């Protein structure tokens, strides 16, 4: 019994360390905005670009991201300390809203 407890505890800890390591190191590759389409719906993507428009609503922020290949609308549900003309990296899920493709951002980092 004690052996089983030790074994399951050790396996739990190994699993936890692996998950923490992978969670901090694994991210999707950067995709050009023009390549994001209906086939990517429900996929997690990473994009980079300049914020060209920001619209604040009560419960969310809508912003438009632009790179050399195109533009895409993004939505973010948390605090948004970014401004127009700043370059950011956005990680989020591709969704369809009223017939349009957009990214539901979960993580936004400022690019230098």
């Amino acid at each position: 019994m004690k052996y089983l407890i030790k074994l399951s505890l050790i396996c739990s800890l190994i699993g936890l360390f692996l998950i923490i390591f992978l969670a901090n190191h694994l991210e999707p590759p950067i995709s050009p905005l023009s390549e994001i389409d209906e086939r990517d719906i429900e996929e997690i993507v990473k994009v980079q670009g300049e914020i060209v428009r920001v619209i604040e609503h009560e419960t969310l922020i809508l912003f438009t991201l632009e790179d050399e290949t195109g533009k895409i609308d993004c939505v973010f549900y948390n605090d948004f300390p970014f401004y127009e003309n700043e370059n950011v990296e956005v990680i989020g899920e591709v969704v369809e809203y009223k017939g349009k493709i957009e990214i539901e951002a979960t993580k936004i980092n400022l690019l230098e």
Partner: protein
Amino acid sequence: MLIELQLIIVALLGLVAGTITGIIPGIHVNLIAILLFAGSSYFLGYLSPIALAAFIVAMSIAHTFIDFLPSIFLGAPDEDTALSVLPGHRLLLKGMGYGAIKLTLIGSFYGLIFALAIAPLLLISIPKIYPFVSRYIAFILIAASLFLIVREKYKMWAIIIFFLSGILGIATLNFIVIKQPLLPLFSGLFGTSLLTISFIKNVKLPEQKIKKIKVKTIGKIKAIITSLFSSLFVSFLPGVGASQAAVIGSSFKKKIDEKIFLIMVGAINTIVMVWSFIALYTIQKPRTGSAVIIGKFLGIFTQNQLLLLLAVSLFVGSLAVFQTLIFAKIFAKNIKRINYKWLCFVIIIFIVIITTIISGPLSILILVTGTFIGITCSLLGVRKMQMMGCLLLPVILYYLF
């Protein structure tokens, strides 16, 4: 007349969809709602937004009634029924699986009735109370967590399990390449861990009796009232759901009877879903996946539309009671014919396949780690409730920092 007929038809279709999502482990209403939204441009060509919203409401309510079936009979819960697994499983091993389901149905149905009865009061009071209460949710959850740990026989192990689960929860929710991360998280902690133990122990299910479990009326009333109070916190605050409400509700009494607990979990599951639609209307904040999608379909909706959705809830909930009892009888009559050990094995494989398809291959790591934590919890004699740290800890940290 046409719109009314359309609404009745979508409500019945929602009942069927909710039955499917409720019975099959690993399939959640959120998944169907997301798929529906993804195809919204197609569906809106045939149905109005309110009809689509009514479908989601019907599916969600039906799901809250029937999802205890796989949780109790198969040991395969989702995040909202996770805490019902152990008391439900104990009753299943005594041949009272059908009675356990009936207890959750008592909770779900009376929870629905009282949730709707109190709705007018909430419509007036919530916009006033919400800003005040939301500031203290972290402290409420810390207090509830500490209280539950203090009541454990092995307090140090309870703390370890709470934090192990909590760290797993934080790591999982930050694992951005994993889709639907709660699926492998809860399946591992509460599902495959129990199934693995049943497989190893070669659990044999006794003959299941098709009869109700007697609970005193006063006990049922207390369970429903406790459920209403604890659901109040989670229905209108972000990051907390039915499972946390069950944790908070069960902390009001030192020792809670497992039958009362099942009524409570059943009630909370349904109340939280109903009140999430009210939260969407009053404070424009969706608190369940279904409410998120309804918000996207309807935007800011009118009181008449809310009343319509609540009427659909009552209509479908009433039908779901009878439907769930029929399925519960089928499960109870046939489960003994099945070799439970190998049924556990098949369900584990099914969960692994579903998790891989929905969340991706990397999610198996979360599933396996959760399984080992769940096994450790069981072997140490710590109550499975402590593994709700997987959501409690991330929520507490979110609100504190």
